[in-house]
């Protein structure tokens, strides 16, 4: 009910009447559910259809440059925390002087609106981007990355409006291009751990932007059941990638090698596969395929038609030594993807049972989906319930990244949230005097 109330404000209908089902339908027998609908919900539905709600009035809000508070560092932080404008960690006070420093690192006008962000339908401006960058503890020169991230956030392909869904997925930001070294991002050991200012503060910026610019607030319209903290930025090891003759993620996303890009995608979870052993891909890949398949369980709902067909984009992060070993044996990224398609599989009966019984995302059967032309034939090559089927519809649905400790034979698999945070990439636009200024910092 809290989510409906909060979301309806952003849609311009704060008085939208809502009827309630006591408890959760998934935790009730059909008899209990029917009784609850009959005794509670139906009465509310009838009242909502027949009684005109009162006309609402929205309160006034500050202008972008209005000084909303003056105080010490501690007072500013208490003020922001009390109004749900911070994540609970201290923020850097967004003063006009500090914001101007950030704005100097973009050629775009501060009032430019990059898009309108649900759920609160707020203008995603260059100005608000700078404000939240200041608050997150970013340095001013990170501003071009922050702008590209907001451009990705407003892209309908990504689907930011789903960012408060109950699985509590968290966005992974992948960074590519020479800007990694320009700004001293960590792209080697511990790449996904906090500890490096650019990786950490840009990751924090993303979640502050979701909070302040989009309007996702816990206990309101961020309904993550457990949630996650923000992920720090994953920068690819482009030196290693170039050395082995592979292409960086930016090329997979449609840009040129050497372009500065951000790619965002929402991950439901992830896990490490330590101590990958073998001197050939054939020796290494069975373990990796097993890990990728195990990591993506209910998420196959995004593949087989329970929620969508073919929008799952699982990610495999290889440490450089693993990728180099594969490349030395003549394997490309496409070979890795093809192997995963053929071997990162799961029993058909597991998918069908999960969709039909465990999570109630009903598909009928994989056979039915194939017969209707929704899935390729590989999902129903026999009637054997234990036949192994892919977790994606196309080898290219897998995303392969190279980063982490160059000399550890570990890999990491992410499960992904399908179209509820679909991979979206943007080129980072640098200001005209970037090279000159960055050399001075």
């Amino acid at each position, binding site marked *: 009910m809290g*989510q409906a109330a909060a979301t309806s404000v952003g*849609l*311009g*209908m704060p*008085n939208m009447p809502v009827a309630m*089902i006591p408890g*959760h*339908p*998934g935790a009730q027998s059909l008899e209990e*559910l*029917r009784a609850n*609908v*009959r005794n509670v*919900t*139906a009465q509310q*539905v*009838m009242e909502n*259809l*027949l009684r*005109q*709600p009162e006309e*609402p009035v*929205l309160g006034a*809000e500050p202008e*972008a440059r*209005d000084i*909303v*508070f*003056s*105080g*010490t*560092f501690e007072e*500013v932080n208490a*003020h*922001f925390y009390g109004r749900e*404008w911070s994540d609970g960690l201290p923020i*850097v*006070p*967004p*003063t*006009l*002087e*500090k914001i101007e420093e950030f704005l100097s690192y973009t050629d775009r006008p501060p009032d430019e609106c990059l898009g309108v*962000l649900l759920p*609160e*339908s*707020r*203008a995603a*401006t260059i100005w*608000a981007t700078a*404000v939240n960058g*200041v608050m997150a503890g970013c340095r001013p020169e990170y501003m071009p990355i922050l702008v590209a991230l907001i451009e990705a956030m407003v892209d*309908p392909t990504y689907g930011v409006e789903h960012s408060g869904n109950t699985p509590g997925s968290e966005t992974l930001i992948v960074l590519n291009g020479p800007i990694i070294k320009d700004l001293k991002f960590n792209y080697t050991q511990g790449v996904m751990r906090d500890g490096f200012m650019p990786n950490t503060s840009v990751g924090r910026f993303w979640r502050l932007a979701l909070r*302040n610019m989009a309007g996702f607030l816990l206990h309101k319209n961020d*309904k993550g059941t457990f949630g996650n903290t923000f992920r720090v930025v994953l920068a690819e090891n482009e030196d290693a990638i170039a050395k082995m003759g592979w292409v960086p993620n930016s090329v997979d996303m449609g840009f040129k090698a050497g372009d500065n890009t951000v790619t965002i995608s929402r991950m439901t979870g992830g896990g490490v596969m330590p101590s990958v052993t073998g001197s050939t891909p054939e020796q290494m890949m069975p373990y990796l395929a097993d890990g990728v398949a195990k990591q993506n369980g209910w998420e196959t709902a995004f593949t087989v038609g329970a*929620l*969508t067909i073919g929008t799952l984009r699982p990610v495999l992060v290889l440490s450089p030594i693993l990728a180099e070993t594969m490349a030395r044996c003549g394997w490309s990224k496409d070979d890795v993807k093809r192997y995963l398609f053929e071997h990162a599989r799961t029993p058909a009966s597991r998918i069908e049972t999960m969709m039909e019984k465990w999570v*109630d995302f*009903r598909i009928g059967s994989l056979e039915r989906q194939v017969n209707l032309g929704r899935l390729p034939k590989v999902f129903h090559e026999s009637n054997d319930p234990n036949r192994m089927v892919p977790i994606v519809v196309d080898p290219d649905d897998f995303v392969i990244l190279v980063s982490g400790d160059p000399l550890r034979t570990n890999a990491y698999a992410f499960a992904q949230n399908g*179209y509820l945070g679909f991979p979206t990439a943007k080129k980072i636009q640098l200001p005209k005097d970037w090279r000159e200024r960055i050399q001075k910092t």
Partner: protein
Amino acid sequence: MAKKSNGTGVYEVVWPRGERRQALRPLAKRLDTLEGKTIAQLWDYLFFGDEVFSQLEESLRAQYPDVKFVSWREFGSTHAVNEKELLASLPQRFKELGVDAAISSMAC
């Protein structure tokens, strides 16, 4: 660390949100009765909404025997990859189907 705004240890700060771009929208006029009216069912194919709508139909018909329903099957899932297109098509679809009101579910 941010510069102090006025050199006295006091920071003058702006708010971090963007301008609200969605104006208030008036809700549709409520119905004077459900008798003889046509109600559309919109479902996101989650959380047993089919059972919920089935029970709602029964309960509403008990009180308003001539109420009519357009099933959720007519529209498809409102929470699928084509949801934006589907929602945009609804005003026209409602006109074609003579819909007087709609019930949308299941939120969570």
